[in-house]
């Protein structure tokens, strides 16, 4: 184990490939690994997005006429699994975490660089394995939740490959979590206190605690499930005396925190972006820290709200209703604090800012429907319907994915040394925002009026609303075109960014763009006030720039 800031402890520079080849290598540089996560995640996002497109095409008409029903279930299973385990979790944690956390704590790399590289290189093979299962014998058909007995009775090959691939991805996630906790707690530059860290460090600390506590439970559960499938044991198989509800408890013990594993880092990233582009300090640093930790604690004790119709006893329904509803309090604090951060600022309406504000609006709606869903009597009507589909896409797409785009616009100059085209960025935002809301807002109505989720065919009275939703999905697909064009064009011909185009104070901007191996040429800067913006003391900004 290497806990040292000295450059001499990492492999000599000449042994590492240079140029673009280093992104295909087993590089130990946290910045290379971060970008590997980001690009790999985006490729999987394109695949997962195409699958979503296939689902929306199938739902244009009430009949199951676009693809066979078995294939439809494989597509929805792959869509969910890819988007969660290969796009959002690896990108908000792995990509930005690996790139930014060492800068923020004033370190030259992560605590365990080799573990870090292993964590990344587990992802492409398990992702490919998952996708290939479709071409071999058919992929898993039981949804990303893989509830038994359905997951035991559908074709075994696809389900087993699904389990193996999720186990590997979970392992990668645990490696990453351990690495972040060690880096944040142990590699801080001398003189830097915890309460002086940028908010993203706190978000990653909280997220990593959730990862380390809950992912092993998922792993254990899936191993038991694979025993049921391969060795015909009876843990979850009712015909052999097993209990299907136990699986749901174990599964959601991980998979509800998984939602926070997808959104807490996004909360952290927004907390970095908003102050810089509104030129104001982050409002209420201390309450922000406590609300992150509050969400972590509450997030571990709310899982059974996914099971209100599974036949849970009344006391359990009551407890989980109250615990879930109370998550709204720390979450609400964060949103009010972000709006207060905007208030009285000098706001640049660039793509990073627009996507962050789009995130606030979308997530508030997703949060409101979330509090409603936490109420047992409300949930019993809309559980497992399109209302829930709308709710969680407002959280994970309207929330996390908007933040991912915001972060790409914000940190692209640091990654590449070149600026993105802001007009194309704003166009990307407008199409994405309209497309997203057109796609998912009408689904609330569908769920309330009787359309269940995960269906290939539906009551013809829902056709018009489904078609509107599909048009929204088409816009979302089109919105990636200006984005991709912008990225490719700017990598080659974008304007030179300079070291610090946003005039920011956090340490990643106090080095060249892109930063050198080991992050800083000289000593790591000591940033005690990462959010020291604001007019009152104009010297502060200038100090930060030096």
């Amino acid at each position, binding site marked *: 184990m290497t806990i040292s800031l000295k450059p001499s402890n990492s492999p000599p520079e000449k042994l590492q490939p240079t140029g673009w080849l280093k992104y295909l290598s087993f590089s130990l540089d946290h910045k290379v690994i971060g970008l590997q996560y980001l690009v790999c995640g985006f490729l999987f996002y394109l695949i997962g997005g195409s699958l979503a497109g296939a689902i929306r095409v199938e739902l244009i008409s009430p009949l*199951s006429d676009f693809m*066979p*029903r*078995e294939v439809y*279930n494989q597509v929805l299973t792959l869509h969910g699994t890819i988007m969660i385990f290969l796009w959002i979790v690896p990108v908000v944690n792995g990509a930005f975490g690996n790139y930014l956390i060492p800068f923020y704590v004033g370190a030259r790399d992560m605590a365990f660089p080799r573990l870090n590289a292993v964590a990344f290189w587990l992802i492409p093979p398990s992702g490919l394995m998952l996708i290939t299962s479709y071409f071999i014998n058919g992929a898993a*058909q039981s949804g990303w939740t893989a*509830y038994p*007995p*359905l997951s035991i*009775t559908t074709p075994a090959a696809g389900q087993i490959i699904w389990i193996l691939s999720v186990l590997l991805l979970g392992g990668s996630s645990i490696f990453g979590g351990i690495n972040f906790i060690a880096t944040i707690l142990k590699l801080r530059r001398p003189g830097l206190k915890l309460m002086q860290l940028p908010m993203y460090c706190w978000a990653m600390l909280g997220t990593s605690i959730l990862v380390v506590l809950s992912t092993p439970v998922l792993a254990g559960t899936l191993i038991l499930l694979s025993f049921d499938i391969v060795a015909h044991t009876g843990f979850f198989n009712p*015909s052999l005396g097993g*209990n299907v*509800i136990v699986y749901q408890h174990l599964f959601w013990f991980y998979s509800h925190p998984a939602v926070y594993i997808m959104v807490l880092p996004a909360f952290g990233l927004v907390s970095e972006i908003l102050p810089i582009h509104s030129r*104001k*300090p982050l*409002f209420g640093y201390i309450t922000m820290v406590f609300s992150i930790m509050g969400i972590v604690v509450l997030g571990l004790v709310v899982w059974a709200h996914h099971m209100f*119709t599974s*036949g*849970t006893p*009344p006391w359990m*329904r*009551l407890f989980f*209703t109250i615990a879930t*509803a109370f998550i*709204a*309090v720390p979450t*609400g*604090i964060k949103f*009010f604090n972000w*709006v207060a951060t*905007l*208030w009285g*600022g*000098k*706001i*640049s*309406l660039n793509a990073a800012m627009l996507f962050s*504000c789009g995130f606030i*609006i979308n997530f508030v709606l997703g949060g*409101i*429907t979330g*509090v409603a869903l936490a109420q*047992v009597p*409300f949930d*019993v009507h809309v559980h*497992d319907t399109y209302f829930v589909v709308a709710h969680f896409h407002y959280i994970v797409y309207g929330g996390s994915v908007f933040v991912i785009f915001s972060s790409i616009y914000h940190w692209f100059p640091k990654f590449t040394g070149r600026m993105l085209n802001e007009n194309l960025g704003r166009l990307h935002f407008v199409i994405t925002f309209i497309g997203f809301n057109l796609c998912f807002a009408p689904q609330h*109505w569908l769920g*309330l*009026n*009787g359309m*269940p*989720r*995960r*269906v*290939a065919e539906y009551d013809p009275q829902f056709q018009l609303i489904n078609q509107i939703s599909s048009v929204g999905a088409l816009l979302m697909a089109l919105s990636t075109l200006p984005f991709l064009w912008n990225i490719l064009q700017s990598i080659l011909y974008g304007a030179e960014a300079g070291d610090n185009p946003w005039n920011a104070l956090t340490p990643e901007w106090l080095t060249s763009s892109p930063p050198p191996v080991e992050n800083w040429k000289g000593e790591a800067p000591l940033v005690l006030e990462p*959010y020291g913006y*604001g*007019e*009152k003391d*104009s010297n502060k900004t200038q100090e930060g720039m030096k």
Partner: protein
Amino acid sequence: MPKLSAILTLTSSLILGVLGVWIAYNVDMLPVSASMNAPVYDELYRVLFIIGAILFIGMTALVIYSLIQFRRRPGETGDGIDLEGNISLEIFWTAVPAIVVLFVGLYSYDIYDRMGGMQPLMHDHSGQMNNQAERVWGGIGSGPIESSSTKNSSSLPIELTAMQFAFIFHYPKGDIISGELHVPVGREVSLKMESKDVIHAFWVPQFRLKQDVIPGQPTILNFTPTKAGNFPIVCAELCGPYHGGMRSNVIVDEPEDFDTWLKENSKESV
């Protein structure tokens, strides 16, 4: 000036509140209500809608206002105000959501109780014989289901067996087997459900009720239809390739029509 901003804040919150209530009462997104607990559900829905509409419109308006009001004008340099926090404001927006959430929690508990959700099914139900209020969705962990469905003599016991991809209803009285659910208006139905293969769910949107149908664990759902008509029964838990096609109907008849149907289809003479 502080007076003016206080008046502005008050007025805008008032407008926001009225707007929230107006929207909740004028945007109707729910299907027909056809069971005894549906109106109770709709009441909860409306309260949640009012609170949600106020919050959503308020936050969106604040974000858009800030983006317009505090945007960087061309040629403008420098930073925003140096404001790192405000303890009383932060306490305010911790306390208000906490109170709102507490209110929503207690209110939905009350709704849940009125729907009958808190009544333990494991006990003898003799005390509830005259209880007209509907008892809803039992479930596993609720104890011996036999006693709960048979003790209450006024309720109509029906057994539901779900399988890939159909609902089969069995009426112990008359030994009728049907693919559709026939029930009379105004009488409590006690549906005992079990699945033969995978997990399914019994959902009637117009009744605002859903309960998973689980293999190896019988569940129970009690409801009282209030409106004659034909409503869909939808399977709401992914159960295989034909999940989307797993639908049936509940036919709510006037009591006389129901008795006729029962007589016509009975295998034994009633």
